[in-house]
């Protein structure tokens, strides 16, 4: 029991310290994508259209997605996908409400509504979407051959 605890704690510490590298022959694959999301009005109704982000300007809404798949023969458990926000975007407000976020570079996690950051004057203030540095999702288990997608909306600063 203790040996297993130590192994897991050690691997978690290594992963949290810096960027991860792909382990050889991983049974899980991750494929990232990004789309430009625009709302158009067709026949009086609003419709959301996703397209290749060929022309992107400040204020535009992007959808970053991560497709995952377990190609292995055994289930994968405690699957945690971490996505650092590029510095040129902010997390969209509605995404912040439902996603697990970090405002301190991935050290601690929780809901944005509970997060606080230094206000530059020695005190703390409530964190805003502009303070979010990372988002992450925890999937309890992926069956052998199983797959899925996680994603978040971000606004170009």
């Amino acid at each position, binding site marked *: 029991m203790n040996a297993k*605890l130590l*192994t*897991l704690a050690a*691997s*978690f510490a290594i*992963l949290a310290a810096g*960027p*991860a*590298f792909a*382990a050889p022959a*991983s*049974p*899980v*694959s*991750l*494929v*990232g994508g*990004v789309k430009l999301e625009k709302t158009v009005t067709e026949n009086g109704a609003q419709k959301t259209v996703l397209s290749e*982000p060929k*022309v*992107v*300007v*400040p*204020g535009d809404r992007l959808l*970053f997605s*991560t497709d*995952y798949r377990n190609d292995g023969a*055994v*289930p*994968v*458990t*405690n*699957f*945690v*996908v*971490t*996505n*650092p*926000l*590029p*510095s*040129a*975007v902010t997390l969209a407000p509605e995404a912040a409400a439902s996603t697990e976020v970090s*405002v*301190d570079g991935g*050290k*601690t*996690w*929780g809901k944005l509504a*509970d*997060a606080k*950051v230094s*206000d530059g004057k020695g005190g*703390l203030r409530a964190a805003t979407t*502009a*303070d979010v*540095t990372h988002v992450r999702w925890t999937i309890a288990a*992926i069956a052998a051959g199983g797959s899925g997608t996680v994603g978040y909306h971000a606004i*170009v*600063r």
Partner: protein
Amino acid sequence: MTTYRTILRTSACIVGCTLASQTFAGSAHAAGVLAGTLIENTATATYTSGASGGTVTSNKVTVKVDELLNVAVATLTSAPASASSAPAVLSWSVTNSGNGPEAFNLTADPKVSGNAFDGTITSIVIDTNDNGIYDAGVDQVLGAGAATPSIDPDKEVKVFVLVSLPAGATDAATSQVRLTASATTGTGTPGTSFSGKGEGGGDAVVGLTTASANSLAALVASLANVTLVKSASILDQFGTAKPVPGATVTYTLAAKITGSGVAEGVHVTDAIPAGTTYVPGSLKLDGSGLTDGADADAGSAGSAGVDVALGKVSGGSTRTVNFAVTIN
């Protein structure tokens, strides 16, 4: 399994912890991320598989930010600028509120609805030394149809427009001039895209300002008007006022200057009437005697007539010239 998850959860901390502030390391501008910036994203995942753990990294996705074309124009001269014999100097600021360097075409239109008169645009000048004052010979004059130099995102240039009065403008009449600034890359309905014309090699897209903006500045005519009123009084050798040979006629020439401006190069002249002779030494300006000869003082007088130079006279003043003749 459950035990691991619990341990992992208690090692996390949101409420009650002191968190380091995360500064946004990037190019933060009010106008948005700079054109040409690359937005890159890579996801990582950790997992448990059987008795061991693993990590996996996704591919990197990249999006390049294109140029947004936006401009703002604000009037700097708060009160109407005076135009007299010298042109009025009106000033504006032109701000690049887009996210890429851009030059702007400038047009100054003096024909604005409601104008008492339409001024004549003498020149459009960039405030090259950015001191807010029109410095002739230092600030760069824009040739007809020329554009501003390239302005960086979130930066501005100050622009002067020199406006002259047309003939027939009356004192205190006001007029407005409209300055319009338009992005040289292009303007149009928001969202209009100019392929490949953006800073950084991408497209340039017209922003919510339509990449064109304008505002009005006012000028007021400051002119002076001179009217001359001549009167005469006669004193004969008998002490009465009969116009007989030998009587002295004293002329009063009152030059009245009205208006908000300054009259320049004013001369009061008069001829000696036929049948009279100028009384030497009788020339006076505002009650003080002037010598007859053409010398350093303002006046000269003789058989040919009188000439008093008043120079610059402000509106609201009256200057009086007197001289005397005797009836032959």
